[in-house]
């Protein structure tokens, strides 16, 4: 006699709401009047995110459990990560809804008459809203997936929309399309690695569930070579998503080519989702054989930190610079993966949140710096920005200081938490390298600050756009969070402490 599987809809509801919003968005795209679509789509997306946040709040104290026949695990860490992704998504949505960064009609050939017409008509690609919702839902699923199928499907569900979104920039369209192509090819390449690794993990355990794989790995039976192949190939796929060296090649190009608000979303939310999965896989599945992968991941973390910081120095484009800085930050968070203890997990959660919010703010500010041809990302043209708008330049400088980890910013507390967690488990070399690369990183952040405030401006062509109310909310809230969490980190640390629990 077959029993109906129970599905725990309440626990799944945040994801289901976002997915439903995405599907409704697609339907609206097909059936509703084009003129009203922007408002309707924005309303659907924002409404769904708010609803999902309410649901997250309702289930926040429910005991950790697996759901959907063991395919997902809703534990404390999942709930925290999903909440973070939703908040980042909401704020990014506010930035994205300032439509003018996006191409009017994605199918039109760049420079063609068709493109000019659709631009002058003011038409808008409202498909970005359902795409964003799909990506959000995929990311949320990725953090809680507890079998290989769900992991793989979630990975693709959040990656595919991002590939498309990366190619939708209005200005410098060829650049944007190339970014999309690179992102897609390399992304698909890495997910093939992920899948191949997954096959071997299935091979040694005979099950797709992470719990069984974990016990197979720790039991030591099966083939050790297969375990290593599985471990390495899955890691490649995941390390690609967080852009750890040597799997970082796509990052600067995609960050530069994509519309800035999409970059903001990608940089912040993808990191949270991918690290959510990495943390789960390494903490839950591979922790029994930590001795085998710790040296490798330590080396990767060190290379990532040092490389990201060192190469950022040479960048002349602010988006590329932030891309390399995000690579360096990936290295810092990897340090927390190495810690493999509760304080490491809590530190990683804290870091992901604060880094995500600061990154959103930084890219949000970049969208405001413009000249006649659109956004100005050439650092040389940023000279003298401090004179034009002390508030904007000051906020950006503060965010950079937070990235550098200067005290009284949230970035400093995050670094401190991560390094002390890593030190506890004896990874002293990583801590020393981390600290040194922070010094290196500080060099280029300070160079930008110097440029904005001290250098003479060569031309007056750049201007600072008056931000719309939506952008103002997004940038203001994220910058304020960086300040507040720097002064009173306990507000968030207490939460991450109580939410840093993974169950198998």
């Amino acid at each position: 006699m077959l029993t109906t599987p129970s599905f725990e809809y309440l626990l799944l509801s945040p994801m289901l709401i976002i997915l439903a919003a995405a599907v409704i968005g697609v339907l609206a795209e097909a059936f509703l009047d084009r003129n009203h679509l922007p408002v309707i789509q924005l309303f659907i997306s924002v409404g769904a995110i708010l609803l999902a946040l309410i649901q997250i709040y309702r289930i926040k104290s429910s005991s950790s459990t697996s759901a959907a026949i063991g395919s997902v695990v809703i534990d404390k860490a999942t709930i925290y990560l999903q909440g973070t992704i939703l908040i980042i998504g909401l704020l990014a949505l506010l930035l994205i809804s300032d439509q003018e960064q996006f191409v009017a009609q994605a199918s039109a050939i760049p420079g063609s008459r068709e493109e000019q017409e659709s631009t002058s008509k003011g038409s808008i690609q409202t498909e970005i809203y359902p795409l964003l919702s799909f990506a959000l839902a995929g990311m949320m699923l990725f953090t809680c997936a507890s079998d290989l199928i769900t992991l793989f499907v979630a990975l693709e569900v959040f990656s595919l929309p991002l590939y498309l979104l990366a190619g939708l920039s209005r200005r410098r369209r060829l650049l944007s399309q190339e970014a999309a192509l690179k992102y897609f090819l390399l992304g698909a390449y890495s997910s093939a690695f992920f899948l191949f690794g997954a096959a071997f993990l299935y091979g040694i355990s005979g099950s797709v569930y992470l719990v069984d794989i974990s016990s197979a790995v720790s039991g030591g039976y099966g083939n050790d070579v297969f375990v290593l192949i599985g471990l390495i190939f899955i890691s490649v796929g995941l390390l690609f998503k967080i852009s750890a060296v040597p799997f970082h090649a796509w990052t600067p190009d995609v960050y530069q080519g994509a519309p800035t608000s999409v970059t903001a979303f990608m940089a912040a939310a993808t990191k949270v989702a991918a690290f959510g999965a990495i943390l789960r896989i390494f903490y839950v599945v591979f922790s029994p054989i930590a001795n085998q992968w710790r040296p490798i991941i330590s080396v990767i973390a060190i290379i990532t930190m040092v490389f990201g910081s060192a190469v950022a120095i040479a960048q002349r484009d602010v988006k590329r610079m932030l891309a390399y800085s995000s690579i360096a930050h990936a290295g810092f968070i990897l340090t927390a993966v190495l810690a493999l203890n509760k304080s490491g997990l809590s530190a990683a959660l804290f870091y992901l949140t604060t880094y995500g919010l600061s990154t959103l703010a930084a890219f949000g500010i970049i969208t405001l710096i413009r000249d006649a041809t659109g956004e100005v990302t050439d650092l040389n043209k940023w000279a003298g920005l401090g004179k034009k708008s002390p508030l904007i330049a000051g906020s950006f400088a503060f965010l950079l200081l937070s990235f550098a980890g200067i005290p009284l910013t949230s970035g400093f507390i995050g670094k401190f938490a991560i390094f002390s967690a890593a030190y506890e488990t004896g990874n002293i070399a990583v801590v020393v390298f981390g600290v040194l690369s922070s010094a290196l990183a500080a060099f280029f952040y300070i160079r930008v600050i110097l440029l904005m405030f001290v250098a003479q401006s060569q031309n007056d062509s750049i201007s600072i756009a008056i931000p719309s109310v939506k952008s103002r909310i997004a940038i203001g809230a994220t910058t304020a969070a960086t300040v507040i969490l720097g002064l009173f980190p306990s507000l968030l640390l207490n939460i991450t402490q109580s939410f840093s629990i993974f169950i198998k």
Partner: protein
Amino acid sequence: MSILTVMMLICVIGAGMLFFIPTAKTVLVKQISLAISILVALIGIYLVGSLDKTQSGMQFVEIRNWIPTFGINYSVGVDGISAVLILMSVLLVPIVLLATWNESENGRWSVRTFQILVLILEVFMIGVFAATDLFLFYVFFEAMLIPVYFLIAGYGSGERAAAAVKFLLYSLFGGLLMLAAIIGTYVIAGNQIGKTFDIEKLSTLQIDQTTQNLLFLGFFLAFAIKAPLWPFHTWLPDAARSATTGTSVLLVGVLDKVGTYGMIKFCLKLFPEASRYFTPWIIGLALVSIIYGAIVAIGQKDIRGLIAFTSISHFGFITMGIFAMTTQGMSGANLYMFNHAFSTAALFLIAGWMIARRKSANIADFGGLQRVTPVMAWSFFIAGLSSLALPGLASFVSEFLVLVGTFTRYPVAAVIGTIGIILAALYILIPVQRALHGQTLKSNENLSDLDIRERVAIAPVILLIILLGLFPKPILDLINPAAKTVITSNGFSDPVSKVKK
């Protein structure tokens, strides 16, 4: 609430008030910030006056939870050593503000920004000396860099941007090494006595020698860069040449003291065995600083560069006094920190006025100032004599104590250190002779003497230099109990005089 917190809050509120005053009202802005700094200075005097001299522990203590997850507290308190340094800082700020009344007007940004930066810096200066929580200390230690950076980069002259970056990078590098050491100490504390950053509790840790040596180096490098000690000094002359006079005074007078203060409070206290292990090396570095600073100072053409290098020499003395590990050396070093601030402040301020009048920083461009501008020349002369430790002026007592304290343990070092005094006579007297005495150059004929404001600003400094030279007792009474505690509580003892045997 502790009086220390009150002092910091007043500065914060003051800076906040300035933020709401229109940029154009420069005079009002200056008046307000001067009034606030004078108020804080008065509180500082009251603080030192009401300190219980018989007690060697922390006073005016306040402890509040800040980040309980990591065991981090907002905890402040002072003993004699830190109280004296706080007094020094809060006295210098109004003097600097008054003395450099117009300097902020030629900057890249508004006068208002300058005053806000100075007030914020004052908060951090008080905080860094008052913090009794290692994490809190580090926060102030690093945060202090930011306003100074902007003060140099925004209001300095010449290669100000490069100098500011150099200053910041040196300090950041040292600071981050210290952060690694702090994390190490914190983790060890977590294993032994639970997560805490309380300095008293941390000093009870049992750390094995190798770890202790490494952690010590992390701290010491940061402080040696800050102090600055040879060979980590190269940022200081650049910064001093490019910064405004006021910034230079605060930089050399207060910020650099954080380095030597940190050596006493953290290196010695947390890692006594490692300190003992490294003492010979550090004494060696200190000696090199003394001699090197003095020799390079003699060759300086730029008057600000000269003062900067004399400071490097003086910091050598201070470091030597600290690591001599004798009560006299320790007291002397502490008194030296206090005195040095005022004699250097006087030198910098008057040099600043000279440069502003003559539009040149080159020593050779001055000559015969004594005849044209007697008040300015005499003030500079007195400050210079104090800097070379002439008996009867402030620095003499402290330099004497340092040398005596060192002699009882390291006689050779003390003898070599004495050479520094002879060189000091050269590096001060040669420029004094060239700039103040001798033929009055044609170009200097119509230089104006100090005006009322400048005289009011410099008078207390000169007065302090003379008074402390004649009566150092009040300050020494404050320092001595704390200095004795530092020596004894870390298992050091004064060597028994061989004569008695």
